[in-house]
């Protein structure tokens, strides 16, 4: 691939503007990891089947291994690195409290997928959480603690029951 095949893209990543030349074939996942050094987004299959690479693209959860960075001119991308500010995001906090991660390799993808879920469905049932996250593979935890964590984060984020429990 030659330099002349490179395409300039302007986008925001976690709120900061980025302007960069990318190869047409560069996946968003590789762009984030290797060009921007945002290595929190992991890849587990690069075939769109595991969800490890999930990021938010204009607020929608997508698999960054299946999208070319060159398609993203003008887009807003959110990754796991953008979740915490001073303190952890309620989802991160809940994952910690519920032991919802072991190796942590899948965790960034789960956090982003869960963030989208709680945006579209602020008060999901356990079944809805399981369905919404069924495209995300976690090999370590057996999922139960992830489900509980997402449920707790929903409560925290929307000030519903169980806040101080």
């Amino acid at each position: 691939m030659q330099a002349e095949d490179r395409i300039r893209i302007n986008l925001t990543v976690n709120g900061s503007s980025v302007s960069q030349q990318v190869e047409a074939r560069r996946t968003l996942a590789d762009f984030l990891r290797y060009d921007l050094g945002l290595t929190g987004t992991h890849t587990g299959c690069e075939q769109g089947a595991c969800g490890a690479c999930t990021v938010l693209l204009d607020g929608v959860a997508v698999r960054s291994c299946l999208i070319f960075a060159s398609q993203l001119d003008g887009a807003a991308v959110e990754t796991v690195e953008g979740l915490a500010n001073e303190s952890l995001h309620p989802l991160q906090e809940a994952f910690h409290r519920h032991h919802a991660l072991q190796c942590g390799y899948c965790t960034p993808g789960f956090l982003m997928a869960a963030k989208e879920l709680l945006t579209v469905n602020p008060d999901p049932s356990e079944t809805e959480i399981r369905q919404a996250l069924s495209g995300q593979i976690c090999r370590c935890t057996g999922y139960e603690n992830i489900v509980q964590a997402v449920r707790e984060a929903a409560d925290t984020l929307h000030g519903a029951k169980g806040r101080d429990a």
Partner: protein
Amino acid sequence: MPSVKNRGGIGDDLLRLEDDRLLKGQGRFVGDMRVPHVLELAVLRSLHAHAEIVSIEDRGASALPGVVHVVTGAQLQEEAPGLFALGQPPLVAGETLYVGQGVAAALAEDRYVAEDALEKLFVRYRRLPVLSDVERIVEESGEAAVTLGDSVIGFGEVEPLFAAADIVLEERLAIGRATAQPLEGRAILAMPEGEGLLVYAATQGPHGLRQGLAKALSLAPELVRVVAQDVGGGFGVKNGVYPDDILVAYLALKLQRPVRFQEDRREHFLSTVHSRAQVHRIRVAARRDGTLLAVDDDILLDAGAYQARVGYGRTTAVTIPGPYHLSAYRCRIRDVHTHKVPVGPYRGAGRPEGNFVMERMLDALSRRLGIDRAEIRRRNLIEPHEMPYDTRIPDRNGNGVIVYDSGDYPLALETALKAADIETWRERQKAPLPDGRRIGVGIAMFTEDTGVAPFEMGVVDLLEDGRIRIASGSPAQGQGHETTFTQIACSALSQTPGQIVYADTDTALVPAGIGTFGSRATVMAGSAVHLACKKLEDMVLTEAGAILGEAKERLSLSPGRVDAPQGGLQLRDLAASIEAKGEHLRAEAVFRPEQPTYADGCHIAMVAVDPLTGSVEILKYIIVDDCGNVISPRLVDGQIQGGLAFGVAAALLEELVYDNQGQLLTGSFMDYPLPTALDVPAAEIHHLCSPSPRNPLGVKGVGEGGTVPALAAIAGAVEDALLPIGGGMARQLPLTPERVVRLASANERQ
């Protein structure tokens, strides 16, 4: 809502200490490391299961801009024949023995470019006959079939017992080929350092990797330093030395540049060890009252193309007798050579298979004799008053006999039955559910040797700032060693977690080690850390005594301090005065037990099966687990729940299917389905506690107990659901929908 205490000693419900960086996307996985001028390795892999490589033509690969190096197996053999002396070669020079075996490699600063180069290498193959199906191989060749291992273990005379038995049952039972699929693939980064290498690897055993690399490269082991930082799951397959590891290390040395290999998922399917893949012909002899007399098993293990670096057939064999009395036992294991990916350990490492066949045979006996599944187990269990129990089974190394250390198996069974409310389920299953599905209940018990292999080492330092650094030879791949070992250190040294610094496993820091596998880390490395802490305590109190002018017996530790009858000393000040003398306090301890510990437990699965579609839903799942003393309660439960997911996978989902030409037909997550949040139920976990007398912590391993009996419990439940409508015996795993539908209409006559 979990309640949280934060004191931090053994048994406290501590939140994990390693979470923060992982939650923020600041993990330190091998692929996350930014290394200037690192070359990424891409490997061209054989398209054929068995073929001669006639030629490899470079049609522009080396000339591609950005490509730094291209090498074929033949070239490598010529320039570095030493690499080919040990087991599996780093690249094939002559004959490929499985689809996925490396035949050439390219290096570039960008993996995309390295892969471009591979596309410009043209390989001419001459195809050779393929060995694929083990039963066919043995049927056609008999005793002449090529095996990579053939052994018999057992005790007593089985034949007279079979001749005299009231009942003899014989079955063919099979467990499909499967593999671990950690979400992070294999990964290794080698950087030239002095005359040697600094290696960062996603490995379960840094010391073994160092040993293997040093041997392959003819380097002194001290010249190879291996560090394991964050590792994205291991489950058995990230152990030992892979051909790609040797290639990376060799090329880094040769080119004097950092070289990294990151496996992609397709490569993982085609080059990381597979597992299970067993066919059993098992016979059981029993009395009419259900008393087991003898078991005789003949295992064919589809071993793949090379001898397993770590065999697990014998582990299957020693697992089969389980918690039951037997008068005689015999098991033959043949590792049959095929043209497939070599096999190795995978969560349970042979134990789930052994447990599966034994528990299935107990269910068959229950059915034959009309004795309830729980009752038939009850009648054969080893009793607590028999502990320690001499099983008469030779241990895996053949040096001794397996003696169970402790446990109350009848209590495990009764606890599980009560928790499951089994009578209610028996009632419920009399009628189909309104949607036509049938309910079934499966029971499986297990014993498991945990804390295996010779030794582990702990290294504990008093740091200059007064904190205490702990390290061991067993790195974590998600198990949470930082938390668990910190809790062990907190108890041993009366500290709080903030006083403890956990160090990654680094061969430069820990002189010797074995690794993390076989449910051994807490038993082995945990005990070694404990012993090293106790040594350090003694050293610290001695030093403090000298400064304070007190006998060390009158001193004790408290968080950050040495306490004396009057006053005392901050650890920080003590450390500073020791460092000022140019000294340093370090304690090393090796834990080397005579025998492993034996964990046990009972699983009960309640399922709903649709006989028409073959779908299986797990409605409720009970686990009673006895892993002795518990260090980190939520981590232990996390291991059990996570382990169950592997059991569900083996029972219902995952199978590596090959055709008769040795081509893998299920080579992606699309056709090798990993369990999702919709497949894995929340286990209801109950603990019993029979501390092991074989280590200072009284612990037993827990990494595999969630998996081992789950295959049998789930298969038993599916079978149980279908029996009333004429279903057959569940003999083959995984129970895919297709197999369940066939099972439902098997119409086997008793």
